[in-house]
């Protein structure tokens, strides 16, 4: 299966073409419908949540009498109203949809109030009286770590010998740690669901990345078979992981009310409730103890990676596992031990977010490299390159062999294209004469494993329907959240039949059409669903080929699909004509396709195996300036070279790279989740929680896709997944800020937690100056 080669008269929009997003015009003229835009069914109720006010407390009283009598109120759901099982955990049981005894964070939903209007529901929700006895709450990861308060058993990833004796004997030993902040997804469309009860089943429109989980959990709480619940989603207004597990509870609340009342019910969280109630990127604490030789080459590492899991287990097992498996990033550790802890705290349940723990593990590893290089007085880039994976140094801490490692070549290219060496000199010269403003320059690398590390999730289904007029309807199990998945999968089908992209229509994702879907996550949406769609389309194409050969009396080898036509021997008909004839000849024109990623295996107990089908790579070089009077920072230039294999859609992939980078930059620089001493999130709307805006773009922003580099493994048209990896290119911003701080503080190792707010930058400079003063 090779990348298609362009032919003179090619169909429009096949694999590799930079087709615009399939909904682009609907987006710009307002015709693209999101769940809150759908006309509501007759008698539709609107729900509002009653939220807990305590970080941790034992419920003593829930009084709904007053609220029940308020205008328009139709139902109030409490835990006792759940007929099925009151647990919606996507992993280890223990996450009740509604609490029965303890509320575990400020914002914990306690009851659902439904009324004729949103306003009535809101007012009635405020009238529900909840009393509780507060008990001690744990609000930070260090306390949870100390108390060994876990949401899952500790993890251990190990390869080689016990690292401690090696570290002790090593020529150099470094210990360090970094606190990595969380991040709100800030999808522009908040969580929303619309549940519509039917005769014996429940239809649930949910802004979810995981329709099958919504289906399963709605079925579970309502005590229905999965077959009685149909989850649908046409598009989300952004997801980023925030609607992988977090959408489920919203859909369940709406379905619970719908089931209790027999009326449709919509639940839409406003921004403050959305940020207060739902999970975010995990904050992490990463600690290391490392031994190196004189060149800074690592001999052994002993690390602790602790995730702040929040109140429930949620997706922490996967997130933590990915953090452990990305601490190494691009570097070989001859002997390594990484312990992982999922720490229970009384905060929102931290969850999936683009990168899924990978970014947090990776930045820990990068800070370790920084400490090694700067402590030894060596060039940070040189020390990093000395530690790269390579021949004979190719086993990861999880025992997967690193193959097709593209970074050395990509680094060389970026050094040249970014004029790195000359700029390094210019920046050093600038800093020598500029006491107030300091510049920093750094390059960061990225090696990101592609596949779900939970092996069973690496499967997908699709259903391709060809109608007798030649139009095609495509269904698959993936969801569209803006990333262009629907466009890419349609391109695959367009490519198989050699018909224009416009001929392929996309159906909303529905669990009634594709069963047992995996979440659209782990960057794997196009890899999995594209391949499933190809399997289905190939099967139909094969039958059409057979039919055409028979119908036009030629060999099957002489049947070609080309530019919206089918050529059979000396005959040439349009695709639609052939399909019409095939229908009359009773040829089956629909097919379901199924795909499972080959070769991968992983034992989560020993944390060994080959969890990743392949790796995606990227390189970024970033230059920043910091203001030593206020701590303000500006990104001056970023050069990116990213590996998309043979891209399915270079325009969409570029959008993922740019968008991912800026989102990562937000996480690392200005986006700060601040909880007060009572555990209340203080930054719960864009007035207080700042994501990057257009002026924050690097002043000079250059993004290139690695050219002529098809995937070595048989991925869909040899492309590579691109959803998550580019987010981690923003680590170059963090490293450049460190470089500038080092210049401001007089050299040595700057320490800087994430996000690097102006306040942290000033404090870091002050600490470095103090440390240098002490050493002097």
């Amino acid at each position, binding site marked *: 299966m090779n990348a298609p080669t362009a032919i003179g008269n090619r169909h429009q929009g096949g694999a590799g073409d930079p087709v*615009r*997003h399939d*909904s*682009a*015009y609907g*987006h*710009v*003229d*307002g*015709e693209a*419908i*999101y769940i*809150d*835009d759908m006309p509501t069914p007759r008698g539709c109720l609107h729900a509002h949540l009653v939220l807990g006010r305590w970080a941790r407390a034992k419920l003593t009283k829930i009084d709904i009498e007053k609220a029940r009598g308020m205008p328009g109120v139709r139902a109030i759901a409490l835990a006792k109203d759940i007929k099925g099982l009151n647990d919606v955990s996507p992993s280890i049981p223990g996450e009740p949809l509604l609490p029965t005894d303890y509320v575990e964070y400020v914002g914990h939903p306690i009851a659902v109030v439904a009324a004729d209007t949103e306003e009535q529901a809101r007012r009635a929700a405020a009238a529900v009286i909840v009393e509780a006895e507060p008990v001690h709450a744990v609000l930070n990861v260090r306390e949870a770590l100390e108390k060994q308060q876990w949401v899952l058993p500790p993890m251990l990833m190990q390869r080689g010998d016990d690292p401690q004796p090696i570290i002790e004997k090593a020529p150099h030993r470094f210990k360090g740690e970094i606190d990595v902040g969380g991040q709100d*997804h*800030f*999808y*522009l*469309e908040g969580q929303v669901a619309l549940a519509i009860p039917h005769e014996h089943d429940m239809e649930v429109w949910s802004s979810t990345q995981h329709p099958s989980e919504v289906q399963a959990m709605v079925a579970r709480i309502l005590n229905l078979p999965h077959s009685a619940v149909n989850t649908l989603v046409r*598009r989300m*207004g*952004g997801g*980023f992981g925030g609607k992988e597990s977090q959408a489920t509870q919203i859909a369940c609340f709406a379905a619970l009310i719908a089931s209790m009342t027999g009326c449709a019910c919509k639940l839409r969280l406003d*921004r*403050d409730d959305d940020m207060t109630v739902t999970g975010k990127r995990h904050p992490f604490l990463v600690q290391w103890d490392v031994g190196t030789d004189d060149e800074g080459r690592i001999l052994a590492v002993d690390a602790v990676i602790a995730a702040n899991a929040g109140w429930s287990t949620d997706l922490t097992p996967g997130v933590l596992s990915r953090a452990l498996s990305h601490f190494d990033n691009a570097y070989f550790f001859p002997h390594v031990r990484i312990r992982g802890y999922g720490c229970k705290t009384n905060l929102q349940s931290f969850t999936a977010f683009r990168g899924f723990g990978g970014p947090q593990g990776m930045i820990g590893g990068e800070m370790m490299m920084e400490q090694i290089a700067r402590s030894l007085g060596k060039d940070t880039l040189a020390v990093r390159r000395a530690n790269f994976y390579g021949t004979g140094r190719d086993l990861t801490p999880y025992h997967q062999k690193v193959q097709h490692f593209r970074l050395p070549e990509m680094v060389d290219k970026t050094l040249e294209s970014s004029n790195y060496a000359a700029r390094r000199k210019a920046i050093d010269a600038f800093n020598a*004469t500029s*006491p*107030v*403003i300091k510049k920093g320059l750094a390059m960061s690398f990225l090696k990101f494993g592609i596949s779900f590390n939970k092996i069973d999730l690496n499967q997908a289904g699709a259903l391709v329907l060809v109608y007798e007029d030649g139009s095609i309807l495509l269904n698959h199990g993936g969801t569209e959240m*803006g*990333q*262009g998945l629907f466009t890419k999968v349609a391109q695959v089908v367009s490519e198989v039949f050699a018909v224009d992209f416009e001929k392929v229509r996309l159906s909303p994702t529905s669990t009634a059409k594709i069963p047992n879907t995996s979440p659209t996550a782990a960057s794997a949406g196009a890899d999995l669903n594209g391949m499933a769609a190809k399997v289905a389309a190939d099967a139909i194409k094969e039958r059409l080929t057979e039919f055409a050969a028979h119908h036009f009396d030629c060999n099957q080898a002489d049947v070609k699909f080309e530019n919206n036509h089918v050529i059979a021997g000396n005959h040439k008909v349009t695709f639609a004509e052939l399909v019409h004839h095939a229908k009359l000849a009773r040829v089956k024109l629909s097919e379901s396709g199924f795909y499972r990623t080959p070769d991968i295996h992983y034992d989560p107990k020993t944390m060994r195996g080959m969890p990743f089908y392949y790796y995606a790579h990227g390189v970024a070089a970033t230059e920043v300036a910091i203001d*030593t*009077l*206020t*701590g303000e*920072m*500006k990104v001056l230039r970023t050069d990116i070279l990213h590996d998309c294999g043979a891209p399915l859609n270079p325009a969409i992939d*570029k*959008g993922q790279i*740019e*968008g*991912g980078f*800026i989102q990562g930059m937000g996480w690392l620089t*200005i986006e*700060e989740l601040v909880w007060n001493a009572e555990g209340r999130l*203080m930054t719960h*709307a*864009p007035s*207080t929680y700042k*994501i*990057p*805006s*257009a002026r*924050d*773009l690097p002043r000079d922003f250059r*993004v290139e896709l690695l050219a002529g580099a098809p995937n070595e493994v048989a991925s869909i048209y040899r492309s590579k997944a691109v959803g998550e990896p580019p987010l981690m290119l923003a680590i170059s911003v963090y490293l450049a800020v460190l470089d500038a701080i080092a210049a401001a503080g007089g050299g040595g190792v700057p320490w800087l937690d994430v996000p690097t707010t*102006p*306040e942290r930058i*000033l404090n870091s400079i002050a600490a470095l100056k103090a440390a240098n003063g002490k050493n002097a």
Partner: protein
Amino acid sequence: MRNEVRLVVNGQPETVSGVAPHTTVLNWLRARGLTGTKEGCAEGDCGACTVMVGTPKVEGGFEWTASCSCILVVPQLDGRALTTVEGLRDASGHHPAQVLMAEGGGTQCGYCTPGFVMALANLSRRPERDDETILDAISGNLCRCTGYRPILEAARALPHVPTPEIEAGEAAQLLAQTKDGLTYTAGGVRFIAPNTIDEAVEAHAEHPEAWILAGGTDLGLRITKRHEVPPALLWLGRIAELKTLSETKTGLSIGAGVTYEDAVPAFNRLHPELGDLVRRIGGAQIRSVGTMGGNLGNASPIGDSMPALIALSAEIEIAGPRGKRRRVAAADFITGYRKTVLEPDELIFAIHIPKPHPEAQFRAYKVARRIDQDISAVCGAFRLRIEGGVVVDAVSGWGGVAARPVSGEAWAAVLLGKPWTFANVEAAKAALLASDVSPITDFRGAAEYRRTVCAGLAQRFWHETAGDVPVASLEAV
């Protein structure tokens, strides 16, 4: 008096009655099926709900602005034209802003897109623009998917779209239809819209419970965030006297009802640093609606205009009953956390800013974690004049450093009559920290950080006036 709101929606004249006056334009639009306009935050901070609002001009036609529909209430549109994303397409097809965004990869999830499209459509009415204008125009729009590059490129490629001629007639008709005053009541809430400041003062005395509504960019949050129902709304938007702007040789007088957007050009002429500071208040969609009077009346410790007004020795003119007027120095206007010198029967009338002495130095610095649409951790403004080698005039104004904006009096006292030297600047800095500022710790910054920044800004002012370092700010990099 008229009990109905008259406006034009996507080219169609409409009359609204029976809609509670605190209903937001966003909710009103969506309830009637115009769902292209999205709610992203309901606080004017993300721009997903951006619409174009046309205000009839005296000389004919509309003055168009991009505004957030989530914190505008319906009667604020009386006598105005509204264009939503559904109304941009015409017989000839999509608007260039739509085509460029769609074709250039400017959309991913699409939820912020209608807001960007409206901001760009509004921008396309301007014949000339550079990158700064473009960035200003989308400063109130957030996108979480694209990373903005394709949106910027769409904006750069945007052609000038001239105003359709049909608008002249629409505007004239609207003006005629809404000449008579508006007193609109629905859902038990009264919306009072006086035509003169004296009427407003009178109405205020009659309805002391009424919320005073100017632009509503902060007041609107009481409706959308605190879910309060106003007992009544007293809207100042119809009062022409409040919208006057007069520039003389000695200074600038601006009515309390002048929006930031309309004030910025005049501020730039008074001093570019003042314009640059006000340009960083809110996003474009806030600046097109929010007023200078509202910024002061709001009495926030971090309202960004105050430090500069203090440093420029501005005066606030206050209107009282029976045509009474009085003036208060800017530094004395805000007396405590969200408290002002205003008596219950008074309203802010105008702001008078004297032109700085030609030899005076003036600087205004805002420190926040984001350049656009963010609230200061610290805002500091400085005025300084040196004559015969000594400081003869020194004033500084500070925001984010106490329960109210303050004047740096101890800082000034150290400097006056002394030479402008680094040693004296250091001494003034020490006095500033010791006596003038007393910041608190909150999520925008710790008290200690804010103090460090105060010192840093005082030092930057030195560097920028003394010219002793090659680069003294990030803007200069």
